[in-house]
């Protein structure tokens, strides 16, 4: 009697174990199929056009056989970098405020608000940019308002939740003794935060930043609506530009032949960027674990 019950338990265990295993395999398979397909569809075209003309070319005129994506690489990196420059300091300071400075009742209001920010669909951010940010930029600088600057502003808001949440968590994970030690040595609260807590939480904060970069570089819909999508190399943040993601999304619907495959090739480059970021992230988390 007892034995058969155990037997039964073992069988159910076996079944469930395999269901779990299957589920996890599914996601790996999905990843591999996506990676494989993008590379399969894009890589040959990349060499057909020539890597130099593709990565170094300044002109994107698919109907003329010109497939230079350098302006878009610059657009993607520029918009992301700008968003990081604006978003990271604000994010870190907000996290410090939430973790160390704010009274609990206030943190209880701010924290859900930040989390809600993360839940807003990107197209809504784009719409907000189109209707609010762009007219403001236009009224100050002219030229229509669609610009790298508009994209930077929108993206820096979009990456805030990631940075704030992760930074706050890692600040809270700093051992209490660090803080107490610093205070006991006579450091002020602010000195303790900036010279002890933040350095101690460094790798966690950096992970947040890397995740923020990932979000900014991959963002598509919000960017398309505000950046202007011009194919010209942007030379200032008031110029219009185009990101790699925008390029793919904009043109995929009508593209055919080599043009379509070159859009996949743009995707390959984007993937390379994302993979590098993930690799950095992996290293950072490793560092955090070993400490």
């Amino acid at each position: 009697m007892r034995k058969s019950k155990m037997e039964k338990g073992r069988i159910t265990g076996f079944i469930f174990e395999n269901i779990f295993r299957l589920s996890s395999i599914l996601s790996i398979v999905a990843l591999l199929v996506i990676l494989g397909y993008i590379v399969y569809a894009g890589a040959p075209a990349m060499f057909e056009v020539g890597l130099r003309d593709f990565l170094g070319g300044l002109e994107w005129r698919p109907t003329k056989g010109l497939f230079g994506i350098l302006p878009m690489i610059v657009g993607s990196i520029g918009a992301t970098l700008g968003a990081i420059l604006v978003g990271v300091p604000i994010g870190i300071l907000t996290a410090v405020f939430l973790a160390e400075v704010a009274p609990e009742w206030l943190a209880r209001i701010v924290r859900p608000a930040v989390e809600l920010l993360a839940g807003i669909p990107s197209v809504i951010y784009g719409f907000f940019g189109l209707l609010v940010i762009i007219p403001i930029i236009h009224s100050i600088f002219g030229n229509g308002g669609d610009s790298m600057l508009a994209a930077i502003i929108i993206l820096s808001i979009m990456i805030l939740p990631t940075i704030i949440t992760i930074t706050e968590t890692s600040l809270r994970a700093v051992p209490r003794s660090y803080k107490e030690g610093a205070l006991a040595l006579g450091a002020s609260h602010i000195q303790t935060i900036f010279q002890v807590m933040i350095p101690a939480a460094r790798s966690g904060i950096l992970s947040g930043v890397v995740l923020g970069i990932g979000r900014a570089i991959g963002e598509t819909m919000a960017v398309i609506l505000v950046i202007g999508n011009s194919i010209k190399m942007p030379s200032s943040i008031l110029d219009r530009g185009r990101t790699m993601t925008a390029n793919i999304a904009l043109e995929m619907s009508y593209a055919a032949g080599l043009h379509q495959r070159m859009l996949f090739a743009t995707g390959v480059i984007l993937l390379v960027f994302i993979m590098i970021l993930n690799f950095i992230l992996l290293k950072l988390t490793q560092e955090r674990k070993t400490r």
Partner: protein
Amino acid sequence: MSKKLTVLVALILVVLLVFACNKPAETPAPTQEPTPTPAPAETASEEEPEEEPQETALTGKIVVVGSTSVSPTIEMLAADFMERVEPGVTIEVQSVGSSAGVKAAGDGTADIGMASRGIKEEEKALGLDEYVLGFDGIAVVAHPSNEVEDLTSEQIQKIFAGEITNWSEVGGKDADIIVVSREEGSGTRGAFEELMDLDEDVLVTDEAVIAEGNGAVKAQVASKEDSIGYLSLSYLDETVKELKVDGVEVSPENIKAGSYKVSRPFLLLTKGEKSEAVAAFYEYFSTDEAKNIIEDQHLILQ
């Protein structure tokens, strides 16, 4: 950890290898694929309907070759024709461009050629019969507050090329012109560039704001006082102001009469006697169902 990473990388490599061995030469050859309109794209795979023919059922295959702008419409017509009218006929649509379509109709490799432009002088020698499926018209639009009413086609070309950059140069106020264009590959953009001579020596300026779709162009122009853009006719409304081109207002009548310049005919070309299947397909064009499909594609019927 790093071992797992190695395994993952190895897996990726294996998958890539498998894909790579698939002979990249056999890539989807997307030129032959229907452009992604909401069309029922099952043209090819729907062959072999029930073999019980209605008494007069036609059989055969029609090869239609040519303009990428015309092919979405023809694909939809073909799908409807094969489903409802003559299930025995198979229609194969290849969108490779107007010039190739004219040539294919001329040398007989296509039963029907498609062209989204008038027949050129040197092509007249081929002796093709032209059938106008409809007209495609594009309106040049500006912000409603703009004082400019009328532009010559040369001015339009120069504005879009970035040579004229201020409205004061064409009789408007002193303000920089913001050019709004469509994404590359868009049929409307292709047609506009072709008709305004922006497709060869002169190109649309790289500073142009690129909006995805007619609706987005309209929104851009409607929200920016100093902008100029172009739209498919059916998208016109009071949020934007259409400009006269060479003094001619954009309207279906003017387009049909050929006096409005930014328009083009969608032509079907055949050579010599039409086969029964082709004749039946042509006949089908004058049915209400076909007219609805054509008008749904924003074409102006003759």
